[in-house]
Each structure stands twice: as structure tokens, then as C-alpha cells.
């Protein structure tokens, strides 16, 4: 895998994980609230 490949994979995984983290924290906040 090239460096560019690593960069694209890292960014894509980062976006997906950030989206997942956002959803989970909002759902947890709702549960606590």
C-alpha cells in the first residue's frame, strides 16, 4: 500500500469512527438525560 493509500484509508476510517462516536455519545447523553 502506498503512503497515499494509507492516508485515504486513515481519513475514511476516521470519518466513519467520528460519525459512530458522535451517534454513541448523543445516544448516551439522551439515556442519562
Amino acid at each position, binding site marked *: *500500500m502506498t503512503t497515499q*493509500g494509507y492516508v*485515504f*484509508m486513515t481519513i475514511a476510517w476516521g*470519518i*466513519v469512527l467520528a*460519525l*459512530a462516536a458522535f451517534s454513541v455519545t448523543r445516544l448516551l447523553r439522551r439515556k442519562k438525560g
Partner: protein
Amino acid sequence: MERERWATKIGLILALAGNAVGLGNFLRFPVQAAGNGGGAFMIPYFIALILVGIPLMWTELAMGRFGGHQGHGTMPGIFSLLWRHPAAKYFGVLGLLLPITVFIYYLCVESWTLGFSFFSLTGKYNGALTQEAMGGFLRGYQGLARNDYFHGIYWAYLFFVATAAINYYVLRRGIRGGIERLANIGMPLLIIMAIALVVRVLTLGTPDPSRPDQSVMNGLGFIWNPDLGALANPKVWLAAAGQIFFTLSVGFGAIQAYSSYLGKNDDVALAGVATVSTNEFCEVICGGTIAIPIACAFFGVAATQAIARGGSFNLAFQSMPIVFQHLPLGNIFGFMWFFLLFIAGVTSSVALTLPAVTFFVDELGWTRKKAVNVISIFTFAAANLVIFYLAHGFMDELDFWAGTFGVVLLAFIEIVVFFWVFGKDNAWEEITRGAEIKVPRFFRFVMKYVTPLFLIAILGTWAKSDMMKVLKMEAVPPENRPYVWGARALMLAIIAGFTILVVIASRRGSFSRQRSSEENI
């Protein structure tokens, strides 16, 4: 009669994610990414997610909740509420035709995954170590050839009956006891198995040290190394939009049926984002890391390219079992792979059946038991045609019209009816009422203008490039044409049947009935 409700929000999200996560996440996505610019594919992919995927998810969830609290959980009833025109309910027939048609062939593919889960554990395909041998195993199982592995279609039929029975059982148990319970157990199990397979793949390294080019890293490179020049090709953008469409399972009418079992002020905005997040985790991280990288590690990049060109089914059912036979505990990993696909399949197939069941209950006043019985008998009988005419293109024809073209058409009609006929302000109010996140206002503009234009572009391109070819059966051998006509006749019969039922429901006064949410509680 009191309308059933989801027991918990997490249950709803897992059920929606179960509907969205399907075979496409683990098979279609890596093939699409590798063939359309690698890492660069993710640029149009995420743009399409924001401009098409998330807007359609919110639209369908809001439409379903809107219809549900007035006693209509399917598209004929929802369209007649949103668009006060006598023809509106007939456009909604698409929202019954598409999921049932897709279910008819999806049930067969789902049963293959259950069968191969069993064969992985029993080691029935052990020894089939070449593409030819494993291809023979697959064809033997499907009843397309008689060979040393299978003398008939009995095994495939047994697993088909078992799969149909599981679907029937879940649907008979209803929303809470059936679909939600299945999702609560199945989705965490699916995610655990997917992560276990991802870890196994990432720790494989270079299985054959004498072939250093055949490694997992080169497999990941095959998917992720970007070809930025591909971004100038409109087909890459359409492929990305198409992938987003299929992966989220929008345009079937199934999401509306699910959200029709929500309360009037229950959140749909956060539920939509959470569903998308779960789906994207299963697709980009798990789907992109399992099948293609492991195939590259064992067969090399060039051979994997050829396998991918042969289609997703060959990758899943022919190449992956060969790979698993080379791994320690390969039977267990093989079982995990196929059972993961089975769970992804069953949580999607129950969603495909729900619109028809909900239609019979809401609009014709049937009991759930009667509706599930009738739908199950019909789809079981129709799926037999797919099993026995598999070699004659029966499934491909249903897949093009219902699973490819029809869903984009229905999504286009949905967003036009919701944002242009029902009105942008009303639609926005429906999406944001009860929202547990702040929905950015720029989505108002996106949903009214950008999403419909994107969908027109996809429809127009397909109409230009594929539709006439498929319509004229240019790629269909003459001996298969009667079967393809049979598939078309089946779809026309389903349209005619549901249209007659909509007329009957209309005469009963179902579409002029609006129950208040208080009556429903």
C-alpha cells in the same frame, strides 16, 4: 386497534441498521471501491452520503412516522396523506412491489449463506482448493450441475425452507417480539464476528513468504491506493452514489414501514445518523478489510481482480471458502463469514417483507397473523421460480428492475412528493420534530434541490446506458428469453395484484381515514 411500537430506541436503530447492513456492505463495496479509483472513490462516496444517503434516510424515517401516527405505514397510504390527489396512492404501489420482488430473490441468496455456514462447520467443501473445484461445489449446491459434491438441489432446498421458516417466525412474532428481538441479538453478533474477521485478516501478513507480493497490505492497497484521475470520470461519481443508495437500503419503502411504528414526537434525526453510522462502520471498515484483502493475500492482486470481475457471489461463495481452508481454524472462520452474511441477510429480508404485511394490516384490516401467512405463502411459491430458473437469468431480471432501477425511481418520487408537494416547510418540520440533534439547515436546500437532481442524474444515466439493453434483452441468450419474460410477468402480476388491493382499500375508505396519534396510543 392499538398500533404496535418499538420497545426501545436502540432496538429501532439496530433494526434499521439490520435493514441497511446486507451482503452489499461486505461484497459490493470493496469491489466498487477497488474498481473506481481506490481511495479516491471515497471522495464521491462521502459526498453522496451527505447529499443523497443521509437526506433520503431522514426523509423516509419522517414520512413513515408521519404516516404511522395516522394509521398508514406503507407508501400508498403515506403518499395519499402527503399528496391530496386520487392518483397518489397508486404511485405508492411501487413501495410494495419493490420490497416484495427483492425479497423473492434475496431469500434464495440468504439461504445459500445459511447452507454454506453449515458446510463450513461440517467441512463439506474441504478439499475443494481450486477455483474450478469450488465453482463446481457452488454449482452443484445451486442445482446447476451434478457432481461429486451434490447429486441434486435437495440441500439447497432444505436450507431455503429453513430460511423461509426463520423469516416467517420473526415476522409472526411482530415488531417487538420478532424484528426488534432479532436485531438486538443479531446485530451485536454480526459486529463481533465482523471485527473478529477484520483482526484475523489484518494479522495475516504474508501467508506465503515465497510470494511477498501476496500480502494483506497489498490487498488493502488494492482497495485504498488512490487514482485521483478517476475523479474526472462521471461514472465513478455515479458508482459512488449508487453504492450509497444500495448500502443504506433506501428507496424500498421498508424504512417507512419501520418508522411507522414510532410515536408522533419520537426522534428520527439522531436515529437516522446512528443507523448510517452503524452501516458505514460495517461497510468502510469491516467490508473494506475482509474479502478483497484476504483474497489478495492468497491469490494475488491480478487474480483477485479477475475474481471481482466475476461478481460478488463468486467472491463470497467460491473464493472465500478456498481461503478459509488455508487458515488454522479455517472452518470456524468460514462459519463466521457465512453466518455473518446470513445475519446481514435475515435482518434485511424481514424488513423487505414488512411493508406488505403492514399494508394488509393498516389498509385492509387483516390480522398480522393472516397477513404474514398470505405473504409468506406467496413469496415462498415465487422464490421457487428463482431457485429452479436460476441458470436462466430469472434473478438478474428481477434484480435490475426492482433492486437497481426501481429503488432510485421510488426514492426520486418520495423526495419530490415530500419536499415539493407536501412542502419544504412541512417536510422540515416532520424531520426536525422531536430531534435529539440539531439538523443543519443547509439540508433544507440539499433535500429540495440537490438530492432530486442527483437522483435524476443516476436515473438518466442508467436509462441511457442500461435500460434499453435490458428491455431488449440484448445480453440474454435466446433460450433464456422465455424465463426473462416470466420474471417480467411475475413483476407485472405483483403490480396488478397490489393495484387491485389499493382499489379495494380505497373503496373501504382506508385512505380517507386519518386517525389521530392519541387514538393510536
